[in-house]
């Protein structure tokens, strides 16, 4: 599989996805450039997680085409396992393998899929554990870790496959608030190292500080996208404004009925720095 540098990391054309009668994605056109960090935001049920899962073909699109690193995922003859080797996926519920130690969680796919020897796999695994600050947890089982540690181990597991693209599906939504920061720090570091990332998240501060582009989805379509200061700071669409005011200032919701209290688009720069989890 060759990567054409001119092709974007992710390219999506007119993507539709239905679950039975429910149409979750209604025609998405979307790209992620090599090295770009894109945050996808939107209310629950907007289809953002489904979009992310379609990129990795965890969901079979109903219609439309998807290319990842120049390879068409929606080609019926695509070697899915081969393309997935270049894509890392981080889940909301971590999905570490509970019957394996942290180290073996990181080595099993390296050994079974990439056919690396034990010594090499363990060296790479330990290097990645160091990247996420879990050097001392190599021999622990997932159940012995906190949620934040589990998610960092899951990120290290993906990185051990040396992916070109990382997908994050609400990586901090299942965490206690005080554990969110560690995971976001790891992700921020990854972004600074130049990793191509597509992040479905509710962490507006992370999106503002780290994303190159923010995409707002609602009702199965991309409503608006652009640099974070535009989408988060000066959203053009009413739906984006309503969503942001709900997320950033939940206490104001109660007053929405009063016309004189209509929510102002919150200035992105006005966000408190530690307001990582404004839900």
């Amino acid at each position: 599989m060759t990567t054409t540098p001119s092709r974007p990391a992710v390219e999506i054309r007119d993507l539709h996805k239905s679950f039975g009668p429910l149409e979750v994605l209604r025609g998405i056109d979307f790209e992620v450039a090599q090295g770009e960090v894109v945050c996808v935001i939107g209310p629950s049920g907007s289809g953002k997680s489904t979009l992310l899962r379609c990129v990795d073909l965890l969901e079979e699109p109903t219609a439309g085409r998807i290319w990842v690193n120049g390879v068409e995922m929606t080609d019926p003859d695509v070697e899915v396992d081969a393309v997935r080797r270049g894509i890392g996926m981080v889940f909301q519920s971590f999905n570490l393998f509970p019957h394996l130690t942290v180290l073996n969680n990181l080595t099993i796919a390296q050994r079974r899929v990439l056919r690396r020897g034990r010594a090499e796999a363990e060296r790479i695994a330990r290097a990645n554990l160091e990247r996420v600050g879990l050097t001392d947890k190599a021999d622990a089982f997932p159940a012995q870790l906190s949620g934040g540690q589990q998610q960092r181990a899951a990120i290290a597991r993906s990185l051990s496959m040396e992916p070109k693209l990382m997908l994050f599906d609400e990586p901090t939504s299942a965490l206690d608030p005080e554990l969110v920061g560690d995971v976001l720090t790891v992700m921020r570091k990854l972004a600074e190292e130049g990793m191509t990332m597509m992040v479905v998240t509710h962490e507006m501060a992370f999106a503002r500080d780290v994303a190159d582009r923010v995409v707002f989805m609602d009702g199965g379509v991309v409503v608006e996208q652009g640099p974070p200061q535009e989408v988060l700071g000066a959203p053009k669409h009413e739906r984006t404004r309503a969503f942001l005011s709900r997320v950033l200032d939940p206490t104001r919701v109660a007053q929405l009925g009063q016309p004189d209290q209509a929510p102002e688009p919150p200035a992105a720069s006005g966000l408190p720095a530690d307001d990582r989890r404004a839900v």
Partner: protein
Amino acid sequence: MKLRRRQRERLSLGIQYLVFIAVIAAVLFAADWDRLADAFFRVDIIKSMFPTIITVALRNTILYTLGAFAFGLVFGTILALMRLSRVAPYRWVATAYIELFRGLPALLVLFLVGYGIPIAFPERQIPGGVFGSIAIGLGLTAAAYMAETIRAGIQAVPKGQMEAARTLGMSHFTAMRTIVIPQAFRIVIPPLTNELILLTKDSSLAYVLGVTAQTIEITKFGRDMLNDRVNATPLLVAGLAYLVITLPLSQVVRRLELRYAKAR
């Protein structure tokens, strides 16, 4: 006079203990201990059963059980995977097999394997002699039960496990083998142990295949001694021999469950 709550509770508890003691006393008093001891606990007969009951009968019971369990486990796992297959005919075959063999008595299946197949194919032999016939005869039935247990175990592994394995580039087969099935077996250890204990007892059906002095197992051994000595003591010893297998088994499983609890 109205009793207080605590007095009522104490009275009720006292009555229950009283009934218990009365029943025990009645049994102790009514039983003819000399004749019972003579029928069930003749020390000379117990002595004469050793060491054969251990070196031959107990050993064979364990071998038959393990043979049937191994056959059932392998075949049951295949059936479970067939039931979960995307290929509809595999599902039909597995479902039909499971429904059929769960409905047949183990004894009938053992007859079929031990006598039916040799009649149908007189020129061929089941490998392993009596051992092979029992392993297959009991294993065919056990596989049907184990298949359902293992299928439930596989389905109890969260969907995210398969997804995580697939996103790491594993094929469906590799993900099944290294991620899902190992977790499924941890889940089904208690019900599979149950199956192992049931098989230990079912191995007593081996007598229908006509066992010899070398292939005899515990129940047949006890029954032969019963006929030989016209005394029930061998049955008591045979019963204890089964407990020697099943009680430690329960202990081992408890240990395993504790160990795996850490890794879940």
